[in-house]
């Protein structure tokens, strides 16, 4: 396999794929290419569109827009049974009426392989050329089915690969979860797919079993040399196994990189928060290599930001050096709580009104006065994802603008009823209410990031519009809230669809 020359280095190309269900966008204008032989993990919280993306590659869903290519061939019109991919399903989906052997042999019995002993046939087929149907002569290689012996041989090899040699005759329901998982993997790889798709395959296993299977899957990937696309919401799993991690949220790719890079250099606050523990703060870039946050100026290794640009600052808990006594680091603080985590202590340290999460081998009891220092290369600085909420709306009356399916009171001077407008709502102009009825529209809390002195909360309306809110209060995930907007802080702009699209292209 390895010495065969690969005709396409990129085995999968996903081009501007959008998928919506009943108008609800699940995958949004997503592009991604995957190299042959890689172990790629799609990582994200539930509902981020990762499984939908996998199902589109498998052929169970069709993209609403865009195209997916496998080895350069567009596949959206190819049914799943003709795609060179096989899937390991989340709940295994082993056929209950077949034993282990027959489950694994299922695909092999259907498969046709080239038969060089028979002459090729010439067939007349009708093909579409530039929209016109043309009859064409095509040489079709003679094919045959696998013989019983070949099938038995392949199934037994697959069973051996997953460590279930003597289980062929067993009933699939008599197997443990881990064994069923192995059968599901064997059933998929025995068909020798070019790409193996795995949809949270270890989700139903206990922790110990999961760790074992992670290593085994990695080993299998190295042995088989085929491309693995793995879907999970477990960041540790993703970092352990993958060559490349694709972090997704809300149907959009946040970052594509190697596991180490994802961890060390997260692209934005979402990735940093999702991958491991993080201290996420808002800072201001004073100049190149100098950042200020929590009232202190610190040296850092980043440059290329605008002067005084607001940025997200991310510091990993294990990168903060904690020492006894005050005045020995950049921040003085007091330990609020200490939890022993097996190999280290995790402490919450209150310093400059911010609760730092710190991990250290040393234990400090709550109440201790400590100093915190952060090395320049431990400060990760990233552009703020968004600084303002932007919507397309319509002026529907005097001082009334409709956007995100809600009618908001906003001064409309200079606009007329019926005008299409761009609505800019600063994060601090949004107010969340406990009672949905008190707000103009209802929404669910989908994300909450602590930014040092305030929380940045993301809520999603039923129409799936996102509102970012800066608030001093903490909101629980999936809480139902109402949204109010301070109209005086909202900015309106004339909306010109064409111009807006051009702008988007430039970006």
């Amino acid at each position: 396999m390895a010495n065969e020359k690969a005709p396409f280095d990129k085995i999968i190309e996903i081009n501007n794929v959008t998928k919506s269900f009943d108008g609800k966008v699940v995958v949004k204008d997503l592009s991604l290419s995957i190299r042959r032989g890689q172990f790629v993990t799609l990582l994200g919280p539930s509902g981020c569109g990762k499984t939908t993306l996998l199902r589109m590659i498998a052929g169970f869903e069709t993209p609403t827009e865009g195209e997916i290519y496998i080895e350069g061939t567009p596949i959206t019109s190819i049914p799943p049974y003709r795609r060179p991919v096989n899937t390991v399903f989340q709940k295994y989906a082993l056929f209950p009426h077949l034993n282990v052997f027959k489950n694994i042999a299922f695909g092999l019995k259907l498969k046709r392989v080239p038969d060089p002993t028979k002459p090729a046939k010439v067939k007349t087929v009708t093909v579409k050329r530039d929209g016109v149907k043309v009859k064409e002569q095509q040489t079709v290689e003679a094919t045959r089915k696998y013989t019983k012996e070949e099938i038995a041989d392949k199934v037994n090899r697959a069973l051996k690969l997953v460590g279930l040699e003597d289980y062929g005759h067993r009933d699939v329901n008599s197997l443990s979860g881990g064994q069923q998982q192995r059968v599901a993997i064997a059933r998929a790889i025995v068909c020798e797919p070019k790409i193996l798709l795995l949809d949270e395959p270890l989700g139903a296993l206990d922790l110990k079993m999961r760790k074992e299977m992670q290593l085994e899957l990695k080993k299998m990937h190295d042995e088989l040399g085929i491309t693995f696309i793995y879907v999970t919401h477990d960041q540790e799993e993703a970092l352990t196994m993958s060559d490349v991690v694709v972090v997704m949220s809300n149907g959009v790719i946040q970052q594509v990189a190697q596991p180490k890079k994802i961890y060390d250099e997260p692209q934005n606050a979402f990735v940093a928060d999702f991958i491991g523990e993080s201290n996420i703060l808002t800072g201001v870039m004073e100049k190149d290599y100098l950042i200020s946050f929590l009232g202190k100026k610190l040296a850092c290794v980043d440059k290329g930001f605008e002067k005084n640009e607001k940025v997200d600052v991310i510091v990993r808990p294990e990168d903060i050096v904690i020492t006894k006594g005050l005045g020995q680091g950049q921040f003085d603080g007091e330990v609020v709580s200490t939890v022993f985590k097996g190999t280290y202590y995790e402490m919450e340290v209150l310093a400059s009104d911010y609760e730092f999460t710190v991990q250290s081998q040393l234990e400090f009891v709550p109440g201790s006065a400590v100093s915190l220092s952060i090395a320049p290369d431990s400060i990760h600085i990233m552009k703020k994802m968004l600084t303002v909420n932007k919507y397309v709306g319509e002026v529907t009356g005097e001082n009334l603008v409709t956007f995100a399916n809600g009618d908001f009171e906003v001064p409309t001077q200079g606009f007329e009823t019926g005008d299409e407008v761009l609505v800019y709502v600063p994060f601090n102009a949004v107010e969340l209410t406990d009672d949905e009825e008190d707000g103009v529209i209802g929404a669910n809390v989908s994300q909450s990031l602590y930014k040092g002195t305030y929380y940045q909360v993301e809520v999603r309306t039923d129409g799936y519009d996102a509102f970012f809110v800066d608030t001093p209060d903490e909101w629980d995930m999936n809480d139902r809230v109402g949204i109010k907007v301070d109209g005086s802080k909202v900015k309106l702009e004339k909306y010109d669809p064409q111009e807006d699209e051009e702008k988007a292209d430039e970006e």
Partner: protein
Amino acid sequence: MKNRKHKAKVFRPTAFSFPYLAVTVVFVIVPLILVLVYAFRGDDGSFTFGNFAKVFTQKENLIQLGRTLEIAALSTALCLLLAYPVAYILASKPFNKMAILALLFIIPMWINFMLRIFALQSVLTAIGIPKSFWAATIGMVYDFFPYMLLPIYTVMSKLDKSYIEASTDLGADSVQTFFKVTLPLSLPGVISGVSMVFMPIFSSYAITKMMGDAKTTVIGAKIASLFENQSYGNYGYGAALSFVLLVIVLLVMLLSNFLTNRTQKAPKGGVA
């Protein structure tokens, strides 16, 4: 004392089963014993195998038994052929959220059985189908169709979609997926549907009596006529005949249970 107090507090759930047990004894077990007693009782009240000998030696009985098996098997097969595709369609994607459609097929079950037969009889007469074997068969199929549809539909609508996806993922097109996955997994529904239709048809006689011609008499009708005829000797004969019928139905049930057990790994459903 303490002990008794304690005992009084404990209320065993099995106590709930006593009323049902009593009902079963009075209405099922005692009548069955009575049937057996009559079957083995001669005219003079002595023990005899004569009634059974009469059942098996009279050629007419065997012909009618064959006729009954024929009409039951044929009606069951037709029911299955009609109900399976309907269940498949009703459980498939565009309709599976519209339980109301399935309900439409079930509603006739709520209407009095005899009323339905009268109505169908008038319709058949109106379109020129006389009383005959086929008219009786149509009556049977019409009457028992919902009992075939319901268990198959239940199994099909509970069938995990991921099996279908796994099948297509492994290279099976929709026809292959149907025969290799959907059909075998829906077998438990088919088996319970078949037993729910076959057994009542086998022992029913009202439909054949009303819709069949003189040649289309079933064994049920014979038994009924034996009991309707008040002469005492017929009781023993009729009881023996019912007993034979019961054994045949029992055998069919055992066979269906055996088949269900063999396919029991598939998702269960249906009513049997």
